[in-house]
């Protein structure tokens, strides 16, 4: 079974290090193209919103950041599950790589949300449902980050943060629902997977491009951070030393 083989290979950081380079370049190029197209399309070609005017163009950076920050946390929860059940080293590397990027992206989503709220609702900060969900997400991230800072042993640090990430992931639906309970001001979700979007295509197409672009950027960033993390941890092993010494072709700085 090829799946089983792949699973065993995934356990080895060395294998990931060796195969990840083309993927990182691919995701990086895709992110660059998609984000450039998306930003130009969203800023210049997308029609104005009849109510919000041009301030709705903030959506093209706010919504992708908010979406991807949630996905990154979800990915961390899945990595935590994998680490807990199969003790896969690579999963801990993934958690470590997801954390800083996720925190930055969540903070960005909050900031752009506030900037968008000023012309739309007339206030920089509104305790609206999705604001609170995003803020809770940021605190969940920060909790795991603080926990990882506090534990010195690598293996225990991984397992503790995996446990917290799993519990957090299970709780996220409940938190979101409870926060929606009293949410009022925000408009309904822009892109949903099941419903037809309420926006015309010339408005949501650039959003789709931006979302894909941020996803690619996230993949690029997280995978390259994983490579740095792997080299840090395995710096004493033979394969890293051999890689540094015998490799005649320059190692890509991705």
């Amino acid at each position, binding site marked *: 079974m090829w799946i089983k083989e792949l699973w065993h290979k995934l356990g080895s950081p060395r294998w990931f290090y060796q195969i990840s380079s083309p993927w990182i370049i691919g995701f990086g190029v895709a992110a660059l193209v998609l984000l450039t197209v998306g930003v130009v399309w969203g800023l*210049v*070609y997308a029609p104005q919103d009849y109510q919000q*005017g041009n301030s709705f163009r903030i959506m093209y950076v706010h919504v992708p*950041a908010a979406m991807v920050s949630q996905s990154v946390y979800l990915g961390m929860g899945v990595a935590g599950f994998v680490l807990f059940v199969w003790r896969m080293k690579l999963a801990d590397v993934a958690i470590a790589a997801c954390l800083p990027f996720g925190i930055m992206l969540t903070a*960005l989503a909050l900031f752009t949300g506030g900037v968008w709220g000023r012309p739309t609702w007339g206030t920089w900060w509104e305790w609206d449902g999705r604001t609170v969900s995003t803020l809770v997400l940021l605190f969940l991230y920060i909790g795991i980050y603080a926990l990882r800072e506090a534990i010195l042993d690598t293996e225990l640090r991984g397992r503790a943060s995996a446990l917290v990430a799993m519990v957090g992931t299970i709780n996220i639906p409940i938190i979101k629902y409870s926060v929606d309970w009293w949410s009022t001001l925000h408009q309904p979700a822009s892109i949903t997977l099941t419903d037809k979007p309420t926006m015309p295509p010339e408005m949501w197409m650039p959003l789709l491009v931006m979302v894909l672009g941020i996803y690619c950027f996230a993949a690029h960033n997280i995978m390259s951070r994983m490579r740095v993390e792997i080299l840090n941890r395995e710096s004493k092993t033979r394969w890293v030393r051999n890689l*540094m*010494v015998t490799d005649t072709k320059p190692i890509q700085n991705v």
Partner: protein
Amino acid sequence: MVPQFETISEFLAMGGHGLYVWLSYGSTVLVLAGSYFSLRFARQRQLEQLRWQASTNTSDQQQTAHSPKSSNGV
């Protein structure tokens, strides 16, 4: 697909919402570029250090070509 703005100044003003639009796009660029370049620098430092470590730890025949300054791709 027609551009929504006739002039550059109109584009920059964003119909009076220029501050908010550019603030959020600017912060996004800042965050994305920041996370890209900080990682790139970390990676370069790490490679330099690891190559230097490797060149001091391994046998003599490989030692000369790999001082931290002269290695490729750094």
